């Protein structure tokens, strides 16, 4: 118990680092990275301590630590943490990736004049993301959730001198905010029914509801509230139709993309669904929606990734696609699989983004058509990027293979055949676009303009290597050992622990698809054994649709220009004509008009005043006469 309670220091240290950087960072330049990285190292160490505490108590148990925050109208609001396998795993991922990215940034951002500000937001982001993971009540969760959104806005728009990042930051913030409104309404609905923000109590009521017993939650409200929570998750996790912000967010610094748009913030939505899974299980219809949204998202996003030519955007679409897979898995009751894939994907994608950053840092470009043959000049980046690509592509022994397999089994067990085919197809596309990006960047001939490209410094390659290790080995955590640890299915689970079991048919199909995808990529993109242009011509319509991102941006633009702006203009007119002219200026004008008429009685003539005086005294006299004397 005692050890677990130390977890509050993890977000607190990063938050104090943020405060410290804001206070001293400008005057003493090196203090900001030191504070931020120091805080996150403290966090990493404490994660181990907390894990020790968890294992000592009960490895798969769940503990709540709450303190009173403040009291409003008889409702006590708490400040507290959940320590269970889910939050511990997320803690580990967030702290480790944050550390890697911050170390990497030392080199990547070293010439930036705003380095202090960069590390300040990084520290704040780490603190709020950890708070999202730890929060044990919906109010605290929502606060942290919004803080994460704010940091994302600040980090995407870090280079605010340029137009593109600013636009992207605005787009990301507004898109996720729209979804957050739904989340807030959902949280308030739950609060209305349960009477507390406490997750513990809410989940308990949801379980009662699911078991058909007397519960404070009614099934209708729960369904609406849960669906609203899911919309919030869709916004942060870039599910269709809220995905549009993520590819644009690539305008920010690449390490930021590695941190926020691969391993931490975007998985907050998945984490939310996993955390509130008790609610989702009580209303299985919503879970079906979750899996449909997940499948559609991953299908559309992976086709977009396949045709894009910007390295970072390929990775962004790939992230959307894999987030879709996690949602699909959650929707198919694959709780373990989703979290497993979340972590495996988090490591691999952070690695890929940092690799892409290394490539673009060395060659000053992100267009894969202008690259090629980089394996000769930057071997470490190439090998680590390759490991990430193989892991995401689902090649056996790499982390992504095991998690994809778990997802396939979950889909196979709980959803129908179409879902399974869709998932397999996504797996195939995933391998194909990763192979395409990998081959086009690192293989083929080194172009003349890239002759000066060289390997990145050790501060950038070291995080790559450190991230490549879990991308390579994390998958083996599915297997249990003899002493205590029974595999990931016995550590992170919802209600029923289960062992890892390998479905030979599904596994071999997915392996064959992944290997084929990697196999055909080389002749397709590098040695050009097949005529790529003919294939392109054959599918030209489809490719154009994919390149334009299924016209989501255009539809939104049309919607905003034709619907939102037009109605805003009407409302603006209403405001000016009715609210302002009639409502505000109206009384003032009528008062002025009345006064201009009334003041005519003030003539200034002495005898008029005298007459009024006389009449007045006569009236007073007669009233007195009638009332008193008479």
């Amino acid at each position, binding site marked *: 118990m005692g050890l677990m309670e130390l977890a509050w220091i993890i977000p607190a240290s990063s938050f104090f680092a943020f405060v410290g950087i804001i206070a001293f960072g400008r005057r003493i330049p090196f203090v900001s990275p030191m504070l931020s990285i120091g805080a996150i190292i403290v966090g990493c160490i404490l994660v181990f301590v907390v894990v020790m505490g968890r294992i000592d108590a009960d490895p798969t148990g769940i503990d709540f630590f709450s303190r009173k925050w403040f009291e409003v109208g008889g409702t006590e609001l708490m400040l507290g943490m959940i320590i269970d396998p889910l939050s511990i795993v997320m803690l580990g991922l967030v702290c480790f990736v944050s550390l890697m990215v911050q170390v990497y940034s030392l080199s990547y951002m070293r010439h930036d004049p705003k380095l202090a500000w960069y590390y300040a937001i990084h520290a704040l982001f780490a603190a709020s993301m950890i708070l999202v993971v730890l929060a044990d009540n919906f109010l605290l969760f929502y606060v942290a959730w919004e803080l994460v959104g704010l940091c994302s806005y600040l980090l995407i728009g870090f280079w605010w001198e340029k137009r593109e990042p600013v636009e992207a930051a605005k787009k990301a913030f507004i898109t996720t905010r729209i979804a957050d409104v739904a989340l807030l309404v959902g949280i308030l609905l739950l609060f209305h029914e349960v009477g507390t923000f406490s997750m513990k109590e809410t989940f308990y009521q949801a379980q009662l509801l699911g078991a058909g017993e007397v519960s404070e939650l009614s099934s209708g409200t729960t369904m609406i509230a849960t669906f609203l929570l899911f919309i919030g998750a869709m916004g942060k996790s870039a599910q269709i139709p809220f995905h549009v912000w993520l590819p644009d967010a690539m305008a920010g610094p690449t390490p930021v993309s590695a941190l926020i748009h691969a391993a931490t913030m975007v998985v907050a939505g998945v984490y939310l669904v996993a955390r509130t899974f008790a609610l989702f299980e009580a209303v299985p219809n919503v879970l079906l929606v979750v899996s449909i949204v997940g499948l559609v998202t991953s299908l559309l996003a992976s086709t977009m990734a396949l045709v894009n030519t910007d390295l970072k955007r390929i990775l962004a679409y790939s992230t959307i696609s894999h987030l879709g897979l996690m949602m699909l898995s959650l929707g198919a009751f694959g709780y373990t699989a989703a979290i497993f894939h979340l972590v495996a994907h988090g490591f691999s994608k952070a690695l890929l983004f940092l690799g892409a950053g290394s490539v673009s840092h060395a060659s000053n470009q992100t267009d894969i058509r202008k690259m090629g043959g980089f394996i000769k000049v930057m071997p470490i980046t190439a090998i680590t990027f390759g490991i990430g690509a193989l892991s995401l592509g689902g090649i056996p022994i790499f982390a992504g293979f095991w998690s994809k397999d778990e997802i396939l089994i979950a889909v196979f067990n709980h959803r129908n055949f179409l879902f399974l085919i869709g998932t397999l197809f996504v797996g195939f596309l995933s391998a194909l676009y990763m192979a395409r990006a990998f081959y086009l960047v690192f293989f083929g001939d080194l172009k003349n303009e890239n002759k000066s490209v060289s390997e990145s410094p050790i501060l950038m390659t070291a995080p790559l290597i450190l991230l490549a290790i879990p991308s390579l080995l994390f998958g083996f955590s599915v297997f249990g050992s003899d002493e205590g640890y029974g595999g990931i299915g016995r550590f992170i689970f919802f209600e029923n622990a289960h062992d890892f079991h390998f479905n030979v048919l599904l596994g071999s199909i997915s392996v064959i698809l992944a290997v084929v995808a990697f196999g055909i990529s080389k002749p397709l993109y590098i040695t050009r054994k097949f005529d790529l242009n003919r294939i392109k011509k054959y599918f030209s319509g489809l490719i154009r649709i994919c390149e334009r991102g299924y016209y989501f941006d255009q539809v939104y633009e049309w919607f905003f220009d034709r619907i939102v702006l037009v109605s805003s203009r009407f409302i603006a007119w209403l405001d000016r004509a009715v609210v302002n002219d009639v409502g505000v200026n109206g009384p003032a004008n009528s008062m002025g008009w009345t006064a201009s008429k009334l*003041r005519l009685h*003030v*003539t*200034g*003539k*002495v*005898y008029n005043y005298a007459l009024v005086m*006389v009449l007045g005294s006569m009236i007073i006299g007669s009233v007195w006469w009638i009332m008193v004397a008479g």
Partner: protein
Amino acid sequence: MITLVHFQIVSAALFSIGLYGVMARRSAILILMSIELMLNAVNINLVAVASFLDPDRFAGIIITIFVITVAAAEVGLALAIVLRLFRNRATINVDNMDLMKW
């Protein structure tokens, strides 16, 4: 025999004439004179009522003397104002003196 009512009738008549003068005249001097008439009507009333109610004491009569004194002072003041107005405007017609408004 002359009773209180006769005095009061005279007083009321005098007061009404004064009132009419104040309202109807345009000349500031005439208005002041009319005010004097009204004051004197009040004085008559005071003296008559005082001696009718308590012939042995002089309270009403003394107050009347005070009123006459105050009226004289007031007229002095008013005439000074009228004089200043005449110097400034070359008229004592109150129609032209409508500064007491917006």
